[in-house]
């Protein structure tokens, strides 16, 4: 009786799991398992590696558990040895403290390699990277193209095969910018500008989303990423430019008020918009922006932009560093 109920449970479990796999097999889009760029590719390899290393431990443990429970059941006629006082074995202890140490050593080494690898700026190729400034708003995404001087809302076009230097900030609660097929996410935070390098190898449409909860309409903060050839991208830029729909400061204020939005495009925008959003939310308190305070707002010429980039790059900043820097900046009063 006992045994059959246990067996029934197991059968149910197996059918359930099989059902899950079958259902997901025909319907789902496993975006994380479908890397379309070098960053996502690296992360995908790490996921597979860590899964295999964990499986090396997990599967034997599950097998041993099943074996021990069956072998040492307290039932009449069980001939398995019973040694109530056997409670120590140096060899076994060394084994099961040692194996996890080795596995975590291997995994840790790969983790360190790729963490440093992905934190570095990508290798410079002869293809010039494109820069896109991303602002998370309540509850929509604004994309600005400083080189093209166009802006979009809730969708973004990128040239395929070109490194994209996303610069992230928020003019609302902090969010997280995530395009799974191109690479992992990074937070967007008010008053800070963070950098995230991604790249799409091939043309295609990818799903992008906000990942950190920001209130009421957070669930609708999705955006479409269109990767296309450089020629198509240029054509698209021209068509947006030709649309004659300017984003003004006042227009931005309207856009930034809480609410959802459809996809929109703007033929131009105020060139200092991104920096002023960072400053407005307290960016002047950040150490790295110190030199920015005295400077005229960044214009669209290449040189001052690259300065801005350096100034905003937070890759090497730890949270603790930032907190320290704030205290010394408390009496700054540029608003």
């Amino acid at each position, binding site marked *: 009786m006992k045994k059959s109920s246990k067996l029934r449970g197991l059968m149910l479990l197996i059918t359930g799991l099989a059902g899950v796999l079958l259902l997901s097999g025909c319907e789902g889009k496993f975006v994380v398992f479908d890397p379309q760029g070098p960053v996502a590719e690296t992360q995908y390899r790490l996921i597979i590696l860590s899964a295999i290393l964990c499986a090396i431990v997990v599967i034997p*443990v599950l097998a041993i558990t099943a074996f021990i429970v069956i072998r040492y059941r307290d039932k009449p006629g069980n001939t398995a040895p019973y*040694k109530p006082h056997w409670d120590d074995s140096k060899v076994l*202890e060394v084994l099961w403290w040692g194996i996890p140490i080795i596995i*975590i050593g291997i995994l840790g080494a790969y983790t*360190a390699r790729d963490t440093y690898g992905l934190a570095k700026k990508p290798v410079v190729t002869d293809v010039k990277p494109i820069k896109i400034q991303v602002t998370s708003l309540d509850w929509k995404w604004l994309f600005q193209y400083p080189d093209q001087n166009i802006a979009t809302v809730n969708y973004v076009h990128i040239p395929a095969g070109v490194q994209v230097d996303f610069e992230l900030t928020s003019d609302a609660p902090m969010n997280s910018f995530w395009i799974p097929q191109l690479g992992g996410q990074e937070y967007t935070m008010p*008053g800070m500008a963070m950098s995230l390098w991604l790249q799409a190898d091939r043309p295609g449409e990818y799903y992008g*989303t906000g990942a950190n909860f920001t209130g009421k309409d957070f669930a609708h903060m999705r955006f479409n990423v269109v990767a296309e050839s450089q020629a198509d991208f240029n054509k698209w830029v021209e068509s947006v430019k030709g649309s004659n729909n300017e984003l003004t400061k006042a227009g931005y204020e309207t856009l930034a008020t809480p609410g959802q939005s459809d996809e929109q495009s703007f033929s131009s925008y105020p060139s200092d918009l991104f920096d002023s959003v960072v400053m407005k939310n*307290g960016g002047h308190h950040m150490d790295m922006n110190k030199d920015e305070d005295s400077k005229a707002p960044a214009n669209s010429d290449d040189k001052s932009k690259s300065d801005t980039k350096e100034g905003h790059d937070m890759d090497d900043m730890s949270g603790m560093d930032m907190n320290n820097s704030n205290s010394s900046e408390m009496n700054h009063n540029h608003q």
Partner: protein
Amino acid sequence: MYASIKSFASSFFVTGDPLIYGADVSIGLTTVAILFVLFYFKKWGWLWREWLTTVDHKKIGMMYLIASLLMLFRGGVDALLMRAQLAMPNVHFLQAEHYNEVFTTHGTIMILFMAMPMMFGLFNMVVPLQIGARDVAYPYLNAVSFWLFFFGAMLFNISFVIGGSPDAGWLSYPPLSEMSHSPGVGQNFYIWGIQISGIGSLATGINFIVTILKMRAPGMKLMKMPMFSWSVLSSSIIIIFAFPILTVTLALLFIDRFLGGHLFTMDGGGNPMMYVNLIWMWGHPEVYIVVLPAFGIFSEIVATFSRKRIFGYKSMVFALMSISILSFFTWVHHFFTMGAGADVNVFFAIATMAIGIPTGAKVFNWLFTMFRGRIRLEQPMLWTLAFIPCFVVGGATGVMLAVAPADYQYHNSYFLIAHFHQVLIGGVVFGYLAGIYYWWPKLFGFKLNERLGKWAFWLWNIGFYVCFMPQYALGFMGMTRRVYTYGWDLGWGPLNLVSTIGAFLMGIGFVFQVWQILYSVKYGERDTTGDPWNGRTLEWSIPSPPPMYNFAVVPYAGEQDSFWEEKERRDFAPAPPVPVAQLEAIHMPRNSGVPFIFSACWFVAGFGFVFDWLWMAILGMVGVGVTLLVRSFQYDTDYYVPVEEVIETEIAAGRAI
């Protein structure tokens, strides 16, 4: 006049949702029913003398247990509401705001008002008995802790019918939780509900460290102490280091919200990342606070039900202690993607993975305790066995999450949700349920029905896998946490439906447990021996339920598993009764109504702060001060149980001649 009352009432009471009106009605009816019973059976005096003023650790433990089971119900209903909303694409069951409140309260309640009190309930019910003590080190403080928890939990819970629930997530990241983005009272309820109960938790941590270090029976060296008491010690050590961080963090958030500070907003020179660091410096150790006692429970049960000494005692203790230290060096893994930089991420990634080493060693020690033993599959052991595969897989996905660059893909996704529910349900909930089944006969004097328990067990277990395995897959499909709805286009529908079915199976499992308890109160197998499982540690050497003073004669415990060793020496014959001449009057703490009133004053003060009614907050704080003053002039705080009473009780239990 009428108009102003009406507008006040409409902002004070939550309106506009049929679910809330249903809750209003049921809260009203329950209150009336309780009051009716108390008046009709004239039970007010009994309630006050036996429960509200008690300092007996066993009764406090039971009250913790009852409160935590109620909170498990509340948090579980929240979970089912969420799963119902997510069952299919574009469901219009809950509005966005309502959904946000539901997941915020689900998380907060399950961690702080379900897991913590269930854990404290077990601490209280078991630790003094297990180490041969007559009460905890500070019985009065123990009552204060319980009532602070209770009133904090009540303050948090009323938010959903009065004023509105918090809706910024269970960790309330600024700036979302600041006045600018959460202007209502919900966040204030969050701050004060947790703050008040958090002080109680800190006090409990101190209480049990002192109890374990100072009140062990003679002969019980630390390295002879039962594993559960070891796990309580390590968990309490984490509590006293982690909870002050929570208290300070919430106090700073309070300063931001009430006094217009900018500690956590960039525009005044503060930094939201400061909050995120602080809250996780508490939040991550908190996970180990709740899971370590579960490890202790499993250790006790595995040894008892395999009829074998725990394998590798010393390395088990070493593992507990190293986890309690390592737990403070992993908090950044909750925000690898917040731009901390490669050096920081690598350090915290490897520190996080390192926790897997002692945890893995413990799993092997449990397995090899069963190895060459004799395994009895009774209810506590069933839950322990279910825990092992569940926790091993959960731990493995934890190691996967610790790989910092890969975490950029898992972060905030359903993969993460599945992982932490797997370790928290598989580890903590299964562990505490195992502990409740194990120690229930000791505290209440009867076993819980086996047949209903098996139904509950299988429903919980099958439901668990059906619910959470699909969520790992959903994470890989890009589903992020806290979305209240999603479209058809991403193919998330089928897996979410399966997950919802699993959640409801677990819900039915819980119903079976409630039925099991109610049924067993009447028909449960009575425990007349005091040792229903053939136990190994001191708590099984006294009658069930234990007399108010626990041990008539303080036992000597010179060995690990000393009760078992003693039984072996006696060849498992019943212990001979103690000669009456050896009994003495017993020194015990006196009941006090102050902890209850003191905590109620905190509730009043907290309510005042929530609504920014300064008069009420001041009134409450004055009450707090007065009760403290009253207590400091109470000198008559203890008494001796007369030896006649001890003799009478022991003879009635057949323990003395």
